[in-house]
């Protein structure tokens, strides 16, 4: 093939992917660039932004709502990682150890089917369950534990935990399938060798399954971390950050200062810091949870 023809082929290839790149840059990278540059302005979302240097970042240092939001977000991240890793891994292990393949398939399907319920519906359902006269308090009353009845979303001391613990039994089908496929990927010879060495039951889980599932753990931890920092729907729909600021998180603060208060410049500054924090956590996680694969 002549050089000219090679260029032609290459150019045709690039031309094919060019529209995708145009849209990618336009819809993904340009807004990010706008957000980054807007963080240094006082843009109100309509009038021309004015450059104000680091004023937004200085304001963040003294923003008490943001401080409380950050603390809430850290608690949320910790819980979210535990809940997105432990229950799905346990279920994946249990299904993986079911002897009959057909039964494995059935259990997998049963855990995956709830995916069809939209997330917003789940949130609204839980809001009803948490009401003062909702199902949770009614059940507590029925079983003689009326003294434990609470205003689950109305008490600032427990509202954050109520939102975080929504979705019992916390088995994310997506995470469960990732763990399950990881367990399936463990070579049979390794399992047999481990058996010969006496690694059965819990020993096998801790010495074989978990170490060999580290890539899956790493992926899920990163996704949970990012997901929990970006998850605005539950606090927005259930409490809008209340009572007081007890369920406020940085993403909700960013949303409210931008779209409700019209302080888009400040909202973008919060977004910029969140981006850096997520990046930092992700790098840290990649370093800490090393994997040979």
């Amino acid at each position, binding site marked *: 093939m002549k050089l000219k023809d090679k260029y032609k082929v290459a150019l045709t290839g690039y031309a094919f992917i060019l529209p995708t790149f*145009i849209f990618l840059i336009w819809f993904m990278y340009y807004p990010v660039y706008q957000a980054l540059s807007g963080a240094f302005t006082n843009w109100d979302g309509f009038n021309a932004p004015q450059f104000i240097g680091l004023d937004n970042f200085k304001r963040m240092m003294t923003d008490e709502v943001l401080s409380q939001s950050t603390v809430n977000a850290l608690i949320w991240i910790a819980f979210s990682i535990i809940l997105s890793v432990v229950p799905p891994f346990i279920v994946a292990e249990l299904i993986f150890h079911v002897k009959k393949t057909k039964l494995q398939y059935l259990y997998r399907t049963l855990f995956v089917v709830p995916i069809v319920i939209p997330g917003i519906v789940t949130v609204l359902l839980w809001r009803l369950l948490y009401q003062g006269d909702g199902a949770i308090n009614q059940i507590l009353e029925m079983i003689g534990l009326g003294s434990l009845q609470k*205003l689950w979303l109305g008490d*600032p001391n427990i509202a954050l935990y109520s939102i975080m613990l929504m979705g019992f039994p916390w088995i994310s089908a997506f995470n469960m399938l990732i763990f399950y496929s990881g367990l399936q990927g463990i070579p049979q010879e390794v399992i047999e060798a481990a058996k010969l060495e006496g690694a059965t039951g819990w020993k096998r889980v801790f010495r074989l399954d978990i170490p060999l599932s580290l890539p899956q753990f790493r992926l899920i931890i990163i996704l949970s971390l990012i997901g929990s920092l970006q998850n605005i729907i539950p606090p927005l729909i259930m409490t809008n950050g209340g009572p*007081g600021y007890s369920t406020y998180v940085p993403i909700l603060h960013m949303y409210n200062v931008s*779209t409700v208060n019209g302080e888009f410049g400040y909202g973008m500054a919060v977004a910029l810091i969140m981006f850096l924090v997520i990046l930092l956590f992700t790098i840290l996680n990649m370093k800490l949870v090393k994997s040979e694969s």
Partner: protein
Amino acid sequence: MNIYKKAKMLPVMLIALALVLSGCGGNAANNSSNTPGTTPSGNQEEASGWKGTITMYAQAYTPDAKNISGLRKDQRMLRVVADEYEKAHPGIKIEFIDEEFKDYTQTVRVKAAAGELYDIFWGQWADLNNTFPKGIAEDLTEYFKKPNPYIPGKPTWQEAMNETVVNETVSPDGKHYNINGDYVATAFFYNKDLFDKAGITEAPKSWVELIEVSKKLQDAGIVPMSQGPDYSWFQRHYLTDFYSKEFETISGYDKNPGISSLDETIAISKGLLSTTDERFMAWWPLFKQLTDTWKKDYLTSEPGIVANSAKNDFLAGKTAIIYDGSWVPNNVKDANVTFELASFNFPVLSTADSQFSTGIDASGAVGGPNGAFQFAVSTKEANATMKEEGKKEAVIDWLHFVGTPENVERIVNENGNFVPTWPGTKPNDSMSELASQASKELKAISVGGSSPNLGKNLQRVFGLYLSGNINFDKAKESVQKELDTAIKEYQTKNNTDFSQY
């Protein structure tokens, strides 16, 4: 070979398609027909020669609405008015936006930022003066001072409007951004059947009676009330009463009628509308007497978030009383409820209730010219189609047509939730009791305009106090902190020198 050639052309075609799509995606409003016309006439639109489609978001007056909840399905008076206008102005079409917006402020901000705001949009005066970004709505003041061609005999349009409303809804810089034709009233609406069940024969007329009635309902196993305790609403009843003698002082800082955000900020900075003045929070414990009888669920919630749930509880007969706007009777009718509905006004307080009461009737302080006949015109920055030559004049001409006493009356009364306020208009008979609030002088006092989030932040503290999660001293401290932050923010944004006042 042919196929190869076509394959080579594909990327080019895709790019071309992308560019065409991008051209279309920028501004949907540009798609409206805008063929210039030539019909000469005395009217602005015809003189401008513009022809095309005028878009209008008319909120509760949207005709033939399919997507806006709570509206009567047979409501179409605004469409009738539009048909009359279209008939008299060939080439002009009026298109009503049939959409429900969960967060209207956010919608306006986003649409304006994209240059896609509707030609005429629903905008309440306080939002236009304080909340929305400056420059999204046309200043209508000059049109107010000129005749409306559709109102014969009036030298200016303003003379056909409600003078009090026009004076008191002016912006801090003396401008008018909307035409304001209706009045919303608020009251306690109650389920008469539940009152009967609790042995209550008469609606409460005083604060003490209101508390007694609530306790009686509670004792009978009935939930008296359950809703978000709206700080921005309830504060107006008490502050309007407690500070009634200072109204002129507070409203006079900016030398304009009504209380602007500047007036409010100065009053806060001077310690008048602040916790250093005992009156400012003296009503909190008083109000807590009432909310202590409410179901606790919604006390810490943002009123807007739980508004529908609270209303559904009332319509389902789970709660006996709801404090809400004059749209409740229609909601009750739509829900086909079986109970009898009645209402009573917010009671007039006395010194026996609070030592700070001046005894004035502040029942109308929450309502006011904040209904749905509140229409503003987009600027060309907020709506790219307004750059079309002659379009602004055409839009104003349509606004002139809608904004006559006859049209205000028939549009407002057909809806039935509000009271028309322009001279010469009459409310529906069913609204006559609530309409009495509209005849009172509008001298409402409240805080919340100094910064965009002040009201929301005070609501959070209010909820925590009423639910017993913080005590009065802690609430006072938090409120003062919010007020200080708000006036600092106002000062920074507007470069205001407080010492001038």
